[in-house]
């Protein structure tokens, strides 16, 4: 592993989800980039607050579905019509109606794989370690806490950022540093 690059964040906890969303929006308006919110459930308006582009999961899903369909049709036709053509009950060698069920099933399966692995890939999961886990209080993010993380160049003074967050109503603010993911 090459020299571990350090990475640090400013963490701020908010009382209610709405407070977190407003704070995030205001911080973004102030020009802060690369921020991230943490909450036990998806926040109403959270994505707009972070300025995220529309998710690419649907397109991955559509791609998966289409590849599923094509592979299914190709597989069945090649196997039963061209590689080992057999007269089955006088039915035509290429029985497209009979291929329909498996074509549908495979397109659904590949779409599901697309969605699942797309989600993991886009969110770069599984990622067991993240600097954010350094702070113990952050544990509440998965149950009832609402947090905001603001990236901070390591070593510089983060007091300015912390004060701004306090002014926006953060109940507690901490600074954490860890290996860059």
């Amino acid at each position, binding site marked *: 592993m090459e020299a571990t690059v350090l990475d640090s964040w400013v963490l701020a906890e908010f009382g209610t989800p709405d407070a977190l969303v407003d704070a995030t929006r205001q911080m973004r308006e102030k020009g802060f980039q690369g921020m991230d919110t943490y909450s036990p459930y998806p926040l109403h308006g959270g994505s707009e607050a972070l300025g995220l582009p529309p998710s690419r999961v649907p397109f991955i899903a559509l791609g998966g579905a289409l590849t599923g369909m094509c592979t299914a049709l190709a597989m069945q036709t090649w196997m039963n019509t061209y590689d*080992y053509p*057999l*007269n*089955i*009950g*006088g*039915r*035509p060698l290429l029985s497209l109606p*009979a291929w329909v069920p498996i074509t549908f099933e495979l397109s659904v399966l590949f779409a599901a794989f697309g969605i699942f692995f797309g989600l993991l890939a886009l969110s770069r999961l599984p990622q067991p370690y993240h600097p954010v886990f350094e702070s113990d209080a952050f544990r509440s993010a998965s149950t009832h806490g609402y947090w905001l993380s603001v990236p901070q160049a390591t070593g510089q003074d983060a007091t300015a950022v912390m004060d701004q967050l306090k002014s926006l109503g953060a109940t507690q603010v901490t600074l954490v540093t860890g290996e860059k993911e």
Partner: protein
Amino acid sequence: MNTKRDGVPSQDTSSFALPVVSDRPAPAADAVGEALEHAAANASATETGYGRTYWRSLEEKLGTPEYLEETRPEFPVGADLAPSGFVRREFMQLLGASLALAGATACSTRPQDERLLPYTKTPPEVAPGNPLHYASGMTLAGHTSGLLITAREGRPIKIEGNPQHPVNQGAAGVWEQAYLLSLYDPNRARVMRQGKSPRALRVLAEDVANLVNKAAPADGGARLRFLTEPGNSPMMGDLRNRILKKLPNARFYSYTAMTQDAETEATRALFGNQPVSARYDFAQADVVLSLDADFLESRPANLTYARQFADRRDPKNGALNRLYAAEARFSITGGMADHRLRVKSAEVLAVAAAVAQAIGGPAASVASAAAGKAQLRGTSEEVQKANAWIQAVVADLRAAKPGRTLVIAGERQPAAVHVLAQAINSALGNTGTTVHYVQAPVAEPFGLAQVRALVEDIKAGRVDTLVITAWNPLYALPSDAGLAELLNPATNPDRAKLSVLYTGLYEDETSQYVDWFVPAAHPLETWSDGRAVDGTVSIAQPLIQPLFNGMPESELLALFLTESYRPAYQMLREYWQGQATGQADFESRWETWVSEGIIAGTASPAASGAPDFGAATALVSGYNPPAAPAANELELNFVHDYKVFDGRFGNSAWLQELPDLITKMVWDNAALISPQTAKDLRLEPGAMAELSYGGQKLSVPVWTTPGLADGTVTVALGYGRNGLHEVVAKGVGFNANVLRRAAAPWFDGGATLTKASGSYKFSLTQTHWRMENRPIALDMSVSELAHPSKETEHILERVQGELKPGLQDNLPSFDYGNGYKWGMAIDLSRCTGCSACVVACQAENNIPVVGKEQVARSREMQWLRIDRYFEGAESDPKMVMQPVMCVHCEKAPCEYVCPVNATVHSDEGLNDMVYNRCVGTRYCSNNCPYKVRRFNYLHYTSGKTSTEKMLMNPDVTVRNRGVMEKCTYCVQRIERTRISARVEKRLIQEKELMTACQQTCPTQAITFGSLNDKQQRVTQLHEDERAYKLLHELGTRPRTAHLIRVRNPNPALEPAKSEAATEGSH
């Protein structure tokens, strides 16, 4: 060399099968081989004869006590090694080499070393892998039918009828097809013993020699008696005469269960004590009246008669004949009858007398003698209907052209009925055209009278030595014959004075009480000859060396000549050489006799003189009929079983599992009563009942069959066996011989059937006998077929109509234009339901037997079933038989549902069943509308002994558990014929390729061939207007066409047009 065999000397090959029939010229003689063989032959020969030294080594081994108690007795060294060539046709390996997933195979996938054992000296005609065919014969109860046996690598695997034999004409019955089972049966006796201790042949030979040398001078053998099967073998006849020349006062008696007592008694009366038998010709007969005569199925001449009768049932061969039958039980001939009268067996005499009276002429005088002996009983309405029936029959007999009718009396009927029948025949001028009197092939009398004389001799103490070669007399004889009491030491105080020698294939009921027991060599292990029913002699040559060191009957009797030992082959050749003195070149004529299987020109000559009815009337008036059954009593009928005959085939699993031809019952017999009688006696089918008659009691379960005569109970012989080692037959069914009395061996009044406690579970392969007016087995009169009624037209449309594309058929048709287009045609008019095809299929395709319990759970494995439907009123129905096997549909419903391509259509229209690919989802069987597929629910082919394995056809995979199987149109025969045809670059001829069922069918009801060839019989049958497809409306396009069964009813007896089918509940 690691397969050390303990010093078995080079076999004396002289008694080995001579090279006979091989369609190939013998390959270039192995010159070196012959030279070496000559050298070996001239070496100082050990004692000549049947492997004499062999017996000595066996004697030491036999002496050891452990040999006897061994539960699965080992058999002689070497006999279980497959003679040569390839033994790998074992079972389909569970984890075949083709198993792709190495993970699931054993660590090393190298199959355990499989050995190839070549010959040391290859017999010239044997090419390992190719079958050879030998003509041979099977002697059953005094008649020998000609066989053609296929052998592979030195062991017989399949029996067919000999095409050149005048009686068989290529066909074979159920007993011929199952004959190999008795050859390979591991239960066969192996140990010659005196009392309890094993003995060698030398000891027996010495005993017999002392007996003969002592008896000959003293009393000329007066105290020596023989009880044999009827002697239809010329060689054995000659042997008998030479023994009588040595021991003039010895007496030969012969007995077999299938006695023609009555018929021989009648012909003796008619022909002044000359041994004469009547032969019939159904080809000429337009009107046939059967008086309780099951001529289509009961031995010995049923194969010829069935063929002739069936030819006259085909509308293509001109006007149909008409068959009337009067009988108590429902027989195969009754099923084929146009009009069947249900009448008690005792009343058949009344019917015969009434017909004879009406016909007049010599018949009338005989009839007057029979008057008052029997009259039709039953309600007035029944009697009136019977008389009307008789009037119609008489009118029909008279109306037919003279010499074109035939009346036959059954073997169960008394001599009086036979005399009446012959009288009617001569009155109608049939002698010479449909009836021929010939000298009886079996000259000396055989039957119960013989046994009565023997029992008298023994009781009077005139016998001290009894030699029994007849089959199991203690079981087969009626209970009061008296022989059992004499042989059983418990019931016969001076039993010690009598010494009994018995030879048989099995240790059975008789062998318990004998002093000497000699295990018999199976007839296919030795040389013999025998006359068929028409007198033709056929040479029965062996197919294999004796498996269980049995001794041929001829060599056993030859011991009584105390001459030097001669093997059976030598005796046979010398006899026939003696017969052919004067003619030149006996060697080549012998070759042709043995290769063709028959000796031409040995048919029985015509009898001299004409039947003298005057003398016969004394016989008729002398007959005292059985007492009329009182109100609550029934008439008890004994019949031969269609499957186990008189019990001698009881140990054959194929026959036990063959569904009974009428009741479709397996592994059982029952007290059969008519539904009406069951209601009267308040008996449910399957209820245990107590049948008492003549002071004896038999607890037997009841079963009802439509069409039986009311007031009668019928029990089949041959069951309830408890032979010492006959494991398969033990405990199957109920022994009817317990009730049987010598006075009335076939039927008698005075039987009572009372309900006993408990019920009995029968196993049936077909539980529903009605067609629920579905167009399945079409059965109509010729006139109806000529101009069908509205309703019949609708039915014909459903089974023959053209399927309109788009409406009923939306699949494009597949092009089978070039190459072969295999198809089959089954003519229901010809099919009598004799089920020989079912056993032939089982023999050809290694089909396992599953046992009674599995058949009760409806898992029988036969690929071919005969569906027996009853139509009309439950009391007096018509019966129609329909063989159903896989019909190889072109639009097969089983193929598109198989997930692994295990059942696929071949380019020639065969529905291939690939056993090794089948995973066993069973969807194909569910989707088959004909339900002809069979599934190996358990591993039915496990636990086979080495001799049972030798029976397997090496061209057919032996299926494992979890695999589906079905009729394949004998694809192994198609492929073998195709390969030989393609090697010779020619097309397959029609004659060359027959399926196993087609080849054995006595009436040629089944035809197979290529539908692309217009000349083939199967194509003509497919285009016949009677041809229809089973379940045609489902659009499966079967390749097997059934032909409508046509009847030829007598308009006088034809019931009102719309016969109200009063379907009973069932």
